[in-house]
C-alpha cells in the first residue's frame, strides 16, 4: 500500500491550521460560530403527536403591540377556523383553533415573553367543527393578493420572530430572484422542523412552490443542517417526486447556521447589508414551518390555528406535538410526562430562548420548544470573573464583532465607541457568552445596551 506524501501530511496540516487559524471553523461562507451538543436525539425519535383538545383555549391576538381587533363577543359560538379578530394595519387575523363558546376577552401571559397580550378565551364544545374553508383561487397569484390572503389567514413566521408573512412578501417587489427556505434548525433541543420535514415533506414543498410561483423567483434553496440526514433525504425524495427544481442544500452544523443573514450567505453567497432587509439583495427567506403553513392556507384554506411544538428535556415521553394555539403550556408539558423532580421550564432554544416567565402562559404562534427541567439541564452560569481578553468570543462571533471590546465599552456606556464597534450588528445569538471562560454575560449585556439605545 502506498501512502502518498500529501495524505500523510494532511492531518498534521489540518491540526496546525486549526491551532493557528483565526476562527474555530471556517467554511467559505461565514466565519465564527460554535459547535454545540445538540441534544436533538431526546425528541426527534417520535412521530408528531396531536395534542388532545383542551377544554379552554386562550388565543393571543398579537405580539409587541401588534394586536388584532376582536370581532366576536363573549357568549358567541365560533367554529374551528373562523376569524375571531381582524387584522388592522400590520396585525394578522386570528382564528378559533376549535369550535366552542367565547367566554372572555382578557390579557393572558404567553410563552415566550413577559408580555400579557389580549387573548380570546374559548371554551371548547368538543365537536371540533370546521367552519367554511376558503382556499386561494389559484389563478390570481399576484404578490399583493397572496400577501393580503396570508394576513387574513393569520400567517406569521414560525421560526421565532413571528413577523407577519404577508408583510414580508409585500416588502419584496419584482426584484426578488431567490427564495431561501430555512430548515437549518440550529438551536439544540428543538426538533419541530426536523420532524415536520421528515413527515410532511411534500406539504412543505407545496407551500414552497406556491411562494416560488407567486414571487416568480429563479432559484429556490432549502438549507438544512447536516445533523438531520433523514430530513434531508425525505425532502430530496419529495423534490424528485414532484419533479421540481427546488434545491435541498446540506449545510454544516454550526450554530447559528439558521440565522437569517448566515443562511442567506451560505445558500446564495450574498451578504445582507447591515440594517437592510433580504429583499435589498433580491432574496426572500422564510422558515420551513411557515412554508408548510402557507401551503395549508393557500391550497386548503386552513388558517394558522396550530403549530408543532417540541417538548423535551427531563420527560418520560419527549417529542413533538401539533398544538392548537392558545393551549396552556403546563397542560402541553403534561403530555410529555415530565419527571417528577424536573424543575424549571425554558421556552425556545437554549441559546436564544428564555425561562418561562409565567406558569399560566399559553402557546403562541411563536412557541417552538419547551425544555422541561431547565434548572438542571440549563443551569445558570457561575459568577462572572474579569475578562482576560482570551478572544474566544471574537472567534465565536458569527458577525465578526469584538465582544470583549463591546463589553468594556458597554460597561463604560461609551456610546461613540459602541457605534464604532457596530453593536447594532449583534444578532444576539449568544455564541460569545457560551465560550467565555470568565462566564461574562456578554450577550445579555449587549441586548440591554441595544434596547437602552433604541429607547433614547
Amino acid at each position, binding site marked *: 500500500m502506498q501512502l502518498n506524501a500529501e495524505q500523510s501530511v494532511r492531518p498534521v496540516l489540518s491540526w*496546525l491550521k486549526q*491551532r*493557528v*487559524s*483565526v476562527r*474555530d471553523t471556517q467554511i467559505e461562507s*461565514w466565519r465564527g460560530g*460554535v*459547535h454545540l451538543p445538540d441534544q436533538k436525539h431526546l425528541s426527534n425519535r417520535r412521530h408528531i403527536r396531536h395534542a388532545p383538545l383542551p377544554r379552554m383555549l386562550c388565543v393571543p391576538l398579537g405580539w409587541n403591540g401588534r394586536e388584532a381587533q376582536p370581532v366576536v363577543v363573549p357568549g358567541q359560538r365560533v367554529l374551528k377556523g373562523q376569524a375571531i379578530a381582524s387584522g388592522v394595519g400590520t396585525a394578522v387575523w386570528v382564528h378559533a383553533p376549535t369550535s366552542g363558546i367565547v367566554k372572555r376577552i382578557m390579557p393572558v401571559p404567553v410563552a415566550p415573553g413577559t408580555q400579557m397580550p389580549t387573548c380570546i378565551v374559548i371554551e371548547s364544545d368538543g365537536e371540533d367543527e370546521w367552519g367554511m374553508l376558503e382556499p386561494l383561487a389559484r389563478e390570481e397569484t399576484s404578490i399583493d393578493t397572496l400577501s393580503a390572503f396570508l394576513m387574513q389567514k393569520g400567517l406569521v413566521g414560525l421560526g421565532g420572530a413571528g413577523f407577519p408573512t404577508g408583510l414580508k412578501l409585500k416588502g419584496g417587489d419584482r426584484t426578488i430572484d431567490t427564495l431561501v427556505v430555512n430548515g437549518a434548525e440550529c438551536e439544540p433541543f428543538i426538533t419541530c422542523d426536523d420532524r415536520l420535514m421528515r413527515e410532511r415533506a411534500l406539504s412543505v414543498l407545496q407551500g414552497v412552490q406556491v411562494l416560488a410561483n407567486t414571487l416568480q423567483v429563479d432559484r429556490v434553496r432549502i438549507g438544512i443542517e447536516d445533523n438531520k440526514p433523514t430530513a434531508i433525504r425525505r425532502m430530496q425524495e419529495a423534490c424528485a417526486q414532484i419533479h421540481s427544481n427546488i434545491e435541498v442544500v446540506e449545510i454544516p452544523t454550526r450554530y447559528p447556521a439558521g440565522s437569517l*443573514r448566515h443562511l442567506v*450567505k451560505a445558500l446564495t453567497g450574498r*451578504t*445582507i*447589508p*447591515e440594517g*437592510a432587509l433580504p429583499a435589498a439583495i433580491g432574496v426572500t427567506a422564510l422558515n420551513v414551518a411557515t412554508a408548510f403553513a402557507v401551503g395549508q392556507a393557500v391550497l386548503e384554506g386552513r388558517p394558522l390555528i396550530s403549530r408543532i411544538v417540541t417538548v423535551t428535556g427531563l420527560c418520560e415521553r419527549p417529542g413533538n406535538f401539533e398544538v392548537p394555539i392558545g393551549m396552556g403550556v403546563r397542560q402541553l408539558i403534561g403530555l410529555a410526562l415530565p419527571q417528577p423532580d424536573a424543575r424549571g421550564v425554558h421556552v425556545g432554544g437554549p441559546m436564544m430562548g428564555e425561562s418561562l416567565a409565567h406558569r399560566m402562559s399559553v402557546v403562541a404562534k411563536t412557541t417552538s420548544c419547551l425544555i422541561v427541567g431547565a434548572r438542571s439541564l440549563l443551569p445558570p452560569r*457561575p459568577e462572572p*470573573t*474579569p*475578562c*482576560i*481578553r*482570551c*478572544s*474566544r468570543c*471574537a472567534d465565536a462571533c*458569527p*458577525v*465578526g*464583532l*469584538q465582544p*470583549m*471590546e463591546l463589553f468594556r465599552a458597554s460597561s463604560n456606556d461609551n456610546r461613540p465607541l459602541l457605534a*464604532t*464597534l*457596530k453593536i447594532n*450588528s449583534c444578532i444576539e445569538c449568544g455564541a460569545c457568552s457560551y*465560550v467565555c*471562560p*470568565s*462566564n461574562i454575560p456578554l450577550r445579555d449585556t449587549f441586548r440591554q445596551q441595544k434596547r437602552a439605545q433604541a429607547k433614547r
Partner: protein
Amino acid sequence: MYVIKSTPALMLAVAIALMPGMVLHGLQFGPAVWLQVGICLVAALLAELAAAFYRQVGLVKTLADCSWVPTGLLLGLSLAPLTPIYLDLLATIVAINLIKHGAGGMGQNRINPAMGGLMVVALAFPTLLYPAPSAHAPWLAQVDLAQAWQAILRIGPRLHFDAMASATPLANHYQGGFSVHWSVFGYLLGGLALAALRVIRLEIPLMLLASCALTCVALGESWADSLTELLYGGLMLAAFFIATDPVTSPVTFKGRLVYAALIGALIGTVRRFGLYPDGICIAVVLCNLLVVDIDRRMRPAVFGNPPAGR
C-alpha cells in the same frame, strides 16, 4: 469545543505546562532553580493576599482566579537563581501589586506583570544578581540548598562565580557559543500542549521565533548562530509562555502576528546591539504597550458592514 472552560483552569493549565521545563532546568542547574521558583510563588501568594486586603475585594475571589500562580512561576524562572530575597519580593510586588492590581486587577493590566517586575529588578539592581546559569559553566549545579539559602538571604559570603555581571536566564546566550538548555525541550513540550488545548495561540510563538531568527540573520549573524539562538531556554519560555499572555496580547490573528514579529525583532536587535542582555523583558513590555493600538488598527470588518475604518 474548548477543553479548558474556566479562567482559573486556564491559569492552572499554564502553570502545569511550565512544569516540564522547570524540572529539566533544575536537573541541569541544580536545586537552586527550584528554590528560586518556590520563593517567587510564595511571594506571589503573599502579594495577592496583601492586595486582597488593601483593595478589600474579598480574599477568596482574588485568590480563586489563580492568575498569581503563573505570575509567580514565570518570575521564578526568569529571575536568575540566587537572586537576593528582597529583590524577589520587590519584583513580585511590582508585578502583582503595582502592575496588576494597580491597573484594577486581573485582565486590566497593559503590560505583562512578570516581565514588568523582572525589568525593574534587572534594570535597577544588575550588580546584585548572579549571572544566569550557562551550560558552559554549570557552576550553579554545584551549589547545594544550604549555600543557596545563604546566598539568597545574603547571610554568607558572596559566592565567587560572578565573573560576569548581571544576566538573567532570559539573556544567557550572552556568553556566545552553543549551549543546550534542557529546559528548551520542556518549554516546547508544555507550550505545544497548551496550543493543543487551545489555551495559547500558536501563531505567537511561531512568529516570534521566526522573526527573532530572521532579525539575527538580517543583522549579520550566520544562519547557524541565528537558529541556535532559539535553543536557549529563555527565548522558548518567552515565546510560549510570556508573549502569549492573552491579557497583554492582541485579540485578532493579524494583530498577534504583528505583535509577535515585533517582539522577535526587538529581541534580536537588543541582543545584537544592546549593551544590556535582558532583551526579552524589554521587548515584551514595549510591545505590550503597543497592543491597544494594534487592536484598534486591526479591527476586522463586521458582517454586512463596509470594512472597518480607523
